[in-house]
């Protein structure tokens, strides 16, 4: 099998979608935050918290879906902390976000160690199993790639539609979009800027938490250190890549998933001749190139990272 043939295998595409799933959730989450004018660099830590709390809930006997709920709640709790610091208090969004990431990741590892002081191999849970969509999963290649995924992946795609609907079809979505463009327009129409932003950051962080929980509840079956491994930072870039639009962000996540799945296979193909780190690097390099191309036309939400203080000129 050569490098080109790999592109036509169903397993490559299935893997691409699997890899993209957590990114889709978290990118949508970051997108909602940024649309409301708040950069949430807590994403990496919030994903870790989601991964851990979701996994712990299931390990303690909760159902998988309860685990997802726990991940969402834990995510939005850290989102609330971030929002309280940067929205009413107007602190630096960069510094606060990195602080949240450090706090949330460290706290997850700390609690993990408290609960499992002496483990040699990570404890395991029974994760989500692939659910074959009747009829559709029998289509050659496409069926295997798209319709033999776990329920969480289907949920990720549904989330894209839901977030699009929310942002572009509901009054609240309009308020979120406007608050990220010109908060005084929201204020002048009698809506409280602070509450809209806090709510948006909490909702976005809940999605990030779910994105993290995909790793422990669907992709793997245990929680281990550094498992988010920079996925949060990728999502920050994907939001820019997607020009703050859910559909384009989905495309970006899939593209990254494809690069990543492809490099894994190339590693095996070229094993020994080229250091494997070169392949590990590939998706990031390609993402940066794609980002440079796309972000030349990117229209940032005007009020992104600008704190709003009522009545200030």
């Amino acid at each position, binding site marked *: 099998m050569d490098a080109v043939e790999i592109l036509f295998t169903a397993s490559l595409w299935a893997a691409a979608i699997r890899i993209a799933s957590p990114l889709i959730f978290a990118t949508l989450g970051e997108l909602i935050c940024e649309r409301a004018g708040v950069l949430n660099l807590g994403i990496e830590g919030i994903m870790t918290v989601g991964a851990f709390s979701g996994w712990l809930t299931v390990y303690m006997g909760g159902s998988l879906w309860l685990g997802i709920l726990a991940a969402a709640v834990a995510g939005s709790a850290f989102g609330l902390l971030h929002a309280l610091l940067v929205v009413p208090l107007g602190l630096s969004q960069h510094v606060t976000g990195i602080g949240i990431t450090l706090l949330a990741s460290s706290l997850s590892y700390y609690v993990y160690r408290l609960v499992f002081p002496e483990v040699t191999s990570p404890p395991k849970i029974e994760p989500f199993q692939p659910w074959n969509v009747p009829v559709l999963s029998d289509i050659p290649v496409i069926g295997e790639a798209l319709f033999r995924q776990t329920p969480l992946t289907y949920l990720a795609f549904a989330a894209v539609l839901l977030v699009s609907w929310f942002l572009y079809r*509901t*009054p609240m979505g309009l*308020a979120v979009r406007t608050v990220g463009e010109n908060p*005084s327009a929201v204020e*002048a*129409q009698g809506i409280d800027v602070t509450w809209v932003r806090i709510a948006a950051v909490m909702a976005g962080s809940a999605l990030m938490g779910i994105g993290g929980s995909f790793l422990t509840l669907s992709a793997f079956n245990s929680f281990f250190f550094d498992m988010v491994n920079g996925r949060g930072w990728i999502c920050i870039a994907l939001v820019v890549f997607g020009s703050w639009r859910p559909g384009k962000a989905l495309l970006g996540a899939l593209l990254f998933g494809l690069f990543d799945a492809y490099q894994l296979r190339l590693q095996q193909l070229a094993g020994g001749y080229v250091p494997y780190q070169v392949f590990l690097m590939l998706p990031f390099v390609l993402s940066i190139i794609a980002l440079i191309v796309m972000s030349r036309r990117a229209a940032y939400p005007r009020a992104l990272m600008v704190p709003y203080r009522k009545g200030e*000129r």
Partner: protein
Amino acid sequence: MSRENAGEAEIVLRLAGITKRFGPLVANDNVSLTLRRGEIVGLLGENGAGKTTLMNILFGHYVADEGSIEVDGTPLPAGSPGAALAAGIGMVHQHFTLADNLTVLDNIILGTEPLLRLSSRRNAAKARVRELAEAFGLAVDPDATVSALSVGERQRVEILKALYREARVLILDEPTAVLTPQESTSLFETLKKFADRGLSIIFISHKLGEVLAACHRVAVLRGGKLVAERPVAGATRADLAELMVGRTIAPPKAEPQPAGPAILELSGIAARRGAQKLESLSLALHGGEVLGIAGVSGNGQSLLADLISGLVTPATGTMTLKGKVLASPSPRQMVAQGVARIPEDRHAEGLVGDMSVSENVVSEAYLTPAFSHHGFIDWKKAREFALKIIKDYDVKCPGPEARVRLLSGGNMQKLILGRVMANDPVIVLANQPTRGLDVGAVTYVHEQLLAARKRGAAVLLISEDLDELLSLSDKVAVIYRGQLSPVIRRADVTIADLGLRMAGQGFEHGGESHAA
């Protein structure tokens, strides 16, 4: 409802004893004002007189320290724009509160539906916006993105926002500051139409002529206090100006004086930046003389100003300063050569809002020996310089450490004047120096320009205000699509002739206006 019987209509809005303090500053001092149905009240006052503060209290952006507001006899809860909107108060802010990347319809329906509704009723809303636009002659496409609209259209959107919410009291804060004269006239007609249909309007302005033309009654604020309230009928510009400023204002007069030698000569200049261009432009600036450049905005004025301040390098042609040809001058060189730059947009190009007064006054000269030694800025001297400007130019600000953002437009302009006039410049480059300033500040700027002329500086005055140009200039030229008309002596200029030239007559590819 007509002007005559507006006096007996019911009172819709009552402000009673409003006082608002910002630290030591009393922005509103026991202000009371009533508004009747179908009435247009002009709220007149200089910048910083407290007009905007008063309206921001009414609209709930600020909470008053004392006083109360009643709408139709019901007290209005303080500090809630939502409550003000619900009570039927609509506000068109001076700086539009529109989201540029969203559509007109999005901007209008924002906040008019319950936030948790699952789907916006956009089609019904669109029909209603169209209906309102039709009924009041406020033509605008609901599906257009705001960033694609002209300033006049954006203002219509702001007004539609209020009408969509069935506002009965409409507050317009300096609505004409951004409009062309034609747009202003059409706005006044719209306002009259609103009043006839029973809407009550508060029209905030510092332009006397507009208040006299558009309003039934006028209330004058000065230093936070309501100093006069009277019907417009019978009031004159002079009365109102005196009430507003608190003293009589004599327009400065240019004493005749002989022109000095040519200080700066441009010959055969061509330059281009974006859509703006200059073509085979030649002019000479003489010491002790004001050369006025007239023209509709966007015909190359700002490019000409940037050329002389060294921000733009000409493609062809030569610039000669005091007999020496300038190769490719940098802004710093031009400042060092004695060019005093009064930029068109003082917020964007004149001052840095988030920096202090001291930092701003040395921003053109911090590398000169006067303010730096061995690469370190001498902040003590900068502070002294700032204090001197504050004192000499009567800049109202808390001190040299104050952030410039908090100063009023007039005080910002005084700061810029102080900064550039301190070096006794040989060329004063004044681009729209009085735009957006109130009567007192305008007079002050004019005096300073004439003082520079008297000292023998060459003044280049670029202005869209013909009254200003004709009262200050010794010679006038018209700029049209990057070409300059022959320079005419002030005595030989007629306004009609100037108007025709501004519309392109007598130019190479002239004939029609190139209005932006």
